[in-house]
């Protein structure tokens, strides 16, 4: 039996040495390899070069000469920042493995702290503030107006089915509802579509999506239409005010597009973030992660609002001082509109 074990173990060890043959040679971790992998990753997967009007080949010609075997990590970070900055894309960034901020491409390069909204302030306005799981809070405002805070669209659709059933069961007799997504960083677009459908009476096109399906800059799938249509058991079709901010991102923004197609919804607050597309993470040889948008998302009017955001019907932005002093002007405006 000992001989058999030795024989089988020998076979195992033999194959350990064949990694290069069976898989591939290990990619070197040096500045040039990291630059090439980073540039190639965006070149083959980034879906918004045309929308952003960025010549990625020109970016290569401009920055490749700046990278050599002696380029330090700090220099490489600066080079990467300067390469992606023109993309102006909040879904495009690079995370290093050091304790430092990520390398940003969009508004979050300068917008570091949300100062126009605080969830801690909401109970001042909302009675019987109820936390439903980690993603939803709701209650009643003065004047028989309901309030729903949707923190993200990460949980499953089943979670939202039950949540909205409970919430509408308690808010159905209100004369209006404030839906607050000012700190919603996104989640699953299909879940956001479902939740928007709980406010819909009829079917409306709100978005078309095409995603990269090949390495060429124009390799995309066919455009897929997204409609908001009645979903779930109970629906709420009385007046709704949707509160947004620059921190409303991704699926929070596609939710905004859907809600804006509904005639009884008014958007109040600030422009949304301007980052609609799904994004993916790809690894670099040095262990960093590069994130990039992989799709071309258009609103119902056929236009892309990447880097721009969805503009509200009523533009109103809280200042930091107002929030700290305990006043949420945007929420007060929403209540006023629904009175």
């Amino acid at each position, binding site marked *: 039996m000992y001989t058999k074990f030795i024989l089988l173990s020998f076979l195992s060890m033999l194959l350990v040495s064949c990694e290069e043959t069976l*898989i591939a040679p*290990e990619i070197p971790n040096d500045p040039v390899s990291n630059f090439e992998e980073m540039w190639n990753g965006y070149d083959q*997967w980034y879906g918004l070069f045309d929308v952003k009007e960025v010549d990625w080949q020109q970016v290569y010609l401009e920055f490749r000469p700046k990278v050599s075997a002696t380029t330090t990590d700090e220099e490489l970070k600066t080079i990467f920042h300067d390469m992606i900055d023109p993309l102006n894309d909040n879904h495009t960034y690079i995370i290093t493995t050091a304790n430092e901020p990520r390398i940003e491409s969009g508004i979050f390069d300068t917008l570091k*702290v949300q100062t126009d909204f605080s969830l801690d302030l909401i109970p001042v306005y909302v009675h019987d503030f109820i936390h439903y799981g980690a993603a939803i809070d709701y209650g009643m405002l003065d004047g028989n107006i309901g309030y729903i805070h949707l923190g993200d669209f990460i949980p499953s659709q089943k979670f939202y089915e039950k949540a909205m059933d409970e919430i509408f069961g308690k808010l159905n007799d209100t004369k209006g509802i404030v839906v607050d997504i000012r700190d919603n960083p996104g989640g699953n677009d*299909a879940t956001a579509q479902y939740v928007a459908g709980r406010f819909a009476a009829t079917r409306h096109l709100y978005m078309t999506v095409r995603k990269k399906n090949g390495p060429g800059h124009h390799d995309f799938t066919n455009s897929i239409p997204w409609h908001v249509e009645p979903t779930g058991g109970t629906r709420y079709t009385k007046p709704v005010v949707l509160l947004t901010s620059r921190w409303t991102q991704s699926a929070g923004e596609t939710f905004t597009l859907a809600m804006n197609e509904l005639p009884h919804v008014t958007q109040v607050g600030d422009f949304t973030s301007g980052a609609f597309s799904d994004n993916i993470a790809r*690894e670099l040889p040095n262990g960093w992660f590069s994130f990039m948008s992989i799709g071309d998302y258009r609103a119902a009017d056929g236009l892309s609002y990447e880097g721009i955001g969805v503009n509200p019907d009523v533009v109103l932005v809280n200042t930091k001082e107002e*929030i700290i002093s305990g006043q949420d002007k945007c929420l007060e405006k929403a209540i006023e509109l629904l009175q």
Partner: protein
Amino acid sequence: MSKIIFILLLLLASFTNASSQDLNRSYHRIGLLIGGQQTRMQDQQFSPLIHRANEFSGKFWYEAKYKRDHWNASIDFSTGSLFPAQFADRQIYNTTEDIEGNITVDSVFIRGQTLTGNLQVGYDYSWLQTATWEVRSGPKVRNQIMYPSTFTNLGTMNSASLLINLEVTWYSGSKTEWNAGINTPVLGWNTRFPYSGTVSLPNQTLFEAFFDGGTHFVSFGDYQQVNANLAWRYQLSHDVGIGLAYAFTWQRYLIPVSFKSYSQRLGATVDLTF
């Protein structure tokens, strides 16, 4: 003289009887394997790095043999920590600042975790069967799922395949046997993330969108996988057998982008025949 002939006849009869019993091996058997597995993978859709995992592996099987017909079913799994060798202790940091200027820094180790499982049923026909050798072959139907949870989406794949199998058994003694086998998928349906690396389709869950958007019918030209195994078994008692088993798998799938992996498993087995 008559006694000698009588004894010779008895010996001849016993020998013939033993051969008949060997050729008519029929049994039901269940078995359990516990062992370790080593996996290497590179998924160029998400990373140029080779990720490694040392995993715990288990397998449960059932086999039924009646004369030349051999039926088998098995389920196996493996799980372990997955990471590129150069970055085993990599962390990422998230710094947040609230409206009052309070800063919070969170960090998390970003090792992934493999979870691979196979569910398989098959039939083999023993077209060569002697007292010491058996050669059999036949089809298998298998669903394999690879679901590593990592910071990216690398390595995720489901493969529902029809395989062809070939096995050779050498009965080296009255209580010991060696088994070697090889099988490969010839056609099936493979599902990986589509080229974009994300799944999100209207009115569909992520699970539905994954299969809807990333499934391709494949044949040997599109998907190559080789599964080889070598096992030794010792009949410990009338009903119980023990053994050692080695299994090697290599695969290569190029849709939508190159994915290669290999794994090898070494385990101890115990089985019960009834």
